[in-house]
C-alpha cells in the first residue's frame, strides 16, 4: 500500500482532472481505476455509484445532508440501533433537531443481537424514512442480518444506510445482494490510508440528491448567480480530492481481493473461535457480544474483574500488546452494557493463534498484578 502511495507522489503528483498535460492524465486514470476496483469489490452496478469521501463519518454526513434534508421532515423518523458508532448517531441527531424528526433505536438482547420485534414494530408504526445500521458492530462483533432487514424496510418504503466500516474489510459485501440504498466505509480500516473512504449509493438516488459541498470539479458551469452541476459521482466530489488517498485505497483493495475476502473471513472466524475459547476460560472475565463465532466478526470486547479498561490497555502495552480501550465511540452501547469502557482485541488477516496465546498470558499477568 505504501508503495502505491509513493509511486503516485513521485510520478503523478498533479491535480486529477485538471490540466491537459500527460502527467495529470495518468493521475486521473489511476484515480478512476481505483473507483472501478472499489465498485467491483462491493459489486456495485456502476463505478459512478462510488463517491470518494474522507471516511465513513463523512459518507454518513453526506447522506444526512444531501439526501436527509430533502427526504426527512417534521414528524418523520430515522431508525437506528443501540449498537451504532457515534458517526452513525450524531449526524442523525443534528438532522432530527433541524427538521423536527424523531430517532428510534432498535434495542439489543443481552447477547448483543438486535431485537427484531422492535425493528418490525417501528416499521409498522409508520413514518420511518431511513434505517441506518451497522453491518458489523465495532464493539460486540455482532454481524447483523442486514440483507433481511433491507427487504423488510423496503416493504415500508424505508431506505437503508449500511455502516460497513467494520464489514467491508472483513467479509464479502455485495451491495446488489444486500440491496441497501447507501453503504459507507473507511480506507484506514482495510490496510488503506487515512483520510479516504467511500460512499456507495444507488444511482437513481444520487441523481436526485442535492450537492453536498460546492466548488471546483463538481460543477458543469458556473455563472455569477447560478451554477449547474456534473453528474454523479463528480457532483459530490468538490475541490481537489484526495487523489493519493484514493489510489492508495485502490491498491489496498487489490491486495484484499488477492488474499480473498472469504479467506480473510475464514481466518478471522477461526481466530475468533480460538480466542473466545481461551479468553472465556479466564476467571472473572466478561466477554460482550455473541458467543457463536459464525455470526460475529473478529473483535472481542471484554473486561477482567475490576480492572479498568484503560489500566488493562496499559498493562497489555507493557507486554507489547496493542489493544484499544474506552467507549469505542459507542457511548450509548456502553450505557446499555452498564460499563464505562471495555478493552477490545481485534483480529485481522495478519494475526495468529500464537498472538492470542500471548494475549492470554498477558491477561493472566494483569490478573496477578491486580491480585484478582
Amino acid at each position: 500500500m505504501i508503495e502505491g502511495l509513493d509511486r503516485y507522489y513521485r510520478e503523478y503528483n498533479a491535480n486529477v482532472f485538471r490540466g491537459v498535460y500527460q502527467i495529470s492524465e495518468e493521475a486521473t486514470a489511476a484515480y478512476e481505476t481505483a473507483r472501478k476496483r472499489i465498485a467491483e469489490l462491493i459489486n456495485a452496478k456502476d463505478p459512478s455509484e462510488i463517491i470518494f469521501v474522507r471516511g465513513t463519518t463523512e459518507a454518513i454526513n453526506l447522506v444526512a445532508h444531501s439526501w436527509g434534508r430533502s427526504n426527512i421532515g417534521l414528524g418523520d423518523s430515522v431508525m437506528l440501533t443501540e449498537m451504532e458508532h457515534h458517526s452513525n448517531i450524531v449526524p442523525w441527531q443534528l438532522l432530527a433537531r433541524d427538521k423536527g424528526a424523531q430517532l428510534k433505536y432498535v434495542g439489543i438482547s443481552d447477547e448483543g443481537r438486535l431485537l427484531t420485534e422492535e425493528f418490525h414494530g417501528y416499521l409498522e408504526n409508520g413514518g420511518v424514512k431511513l434505517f441506518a445500521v451497522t453491518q458489523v458492530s465495532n464493539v460486540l462483533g455482532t454481524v447483523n442480518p442486514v440483507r433481511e432487514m433491507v427487504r423488510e424496510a423496503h416493504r415500508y418504503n424505508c431506505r437503508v444506510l449500511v455502516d460497513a466500516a467494520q464489514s467491508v474489510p472483513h467479509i464479502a459485501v455485495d451491495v446488489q445482494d444486500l440491496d441497501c440504498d447507501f453503504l459507507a466505509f473507511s480506507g484506514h480500516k482495510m490496510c488503506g490510508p487515512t483520510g479516504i473512504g467511500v460512499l456507495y449509493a444507488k444511482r437513481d438516488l444520487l441523481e436526485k440528491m442535492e450537492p453536498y459541498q460546492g466548488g471546483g470539479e463538481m460543477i458543469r458551469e458556473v455563472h455569477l448567480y447560478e451554477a449547474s452541476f456534473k453528474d454523479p459521482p463528480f457532483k459530490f466530489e468538490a475541490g481537489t480530492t484526495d487523489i493519493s488517498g484514493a489510489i492508495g485505497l485502490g491498491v489496498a483493495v487489490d491486495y484484499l481481493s488477492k488474499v480473498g475476502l472469504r479467506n480473510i473471513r475464514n481466518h478471522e472466524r477461526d481466530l475468533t473461535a480460538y480466542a473466545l475459547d481461551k479468553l472465556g476460560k479466564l476467571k472473572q472475565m466478561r466477554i460482550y457480544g455473541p458467543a457463536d463465532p459464525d455470526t460475529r466478526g473478529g473483535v472481542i470486547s471484554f473486561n477482567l474483574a475490576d480492572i479498568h479498561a484503560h489500566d488493562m490497555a496499559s498493562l497489555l502495552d507493557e507486554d507489547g500488546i496493542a489493544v484499544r480501550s474506552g467507549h469505542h465511540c459507542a457511548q450509548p452501547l456502553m450505557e446499555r452494557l452498564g460499563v464505562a469502557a471495555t478493552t477490545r482485541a481485534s483480529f485481522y488477516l495478519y494475526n495468529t493463534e500464537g498472538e492470542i496465546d500471548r494475549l492470554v498470558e498477558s491477561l493472566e499477568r494483569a490478573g496477578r498484578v491486580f491480585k484478582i
Partner: protein
Amino acid sequence: MSSVYSEIILDYYRHPRNKGTLDHPHIKAKDSNPLCGDIIEMQLELDGNDSVKDVRFNGQGCAISQASASMLTELVKGKKLDDVRSISKEEILSLIGGQLSAVRLKCALLSLKVLKTGVYTYLGSMSNSKEELSGL
C-alpha cells in the same frame, strides 16, 4: 516487568482515602478527561486562615486517576491555599512512581488540574492561570 501498577496504587484504587463529598465545601470543582472518560470532583473546606480543613474527592475511572486523586487529598489536607497552589506535577508523579506514557499522564494529573481550577476560581485568579492549567 516493572509495572506502574504498584501495590500502593492498587491499595489506593481499592481502598480510596477521602472519597466522598463534604456538606459545606468552600471550593468545588469537577472535570473529566474526554479521551478516557475519567471523572474527578474535588471538594475543599477551609478554615479561617485559608488552610484546607477538610477535603474529599469523588469520581470514576482508571486506577491511576482514582489513586492519584486520593493521594492528592492526603497531600493537601492542612496545607495553606497558597501552598496548594504551588503543588507541582512532579510531586504527583513521584507519589505515583513508575513511568507513565503521555496519555496516562493526563489520567494521573486530572485531579491536580481539577484542584487547581477550584483554587484559582476561588482566589479569583482563574484567567491568568489558564496557561498553567492547559499544561496539565
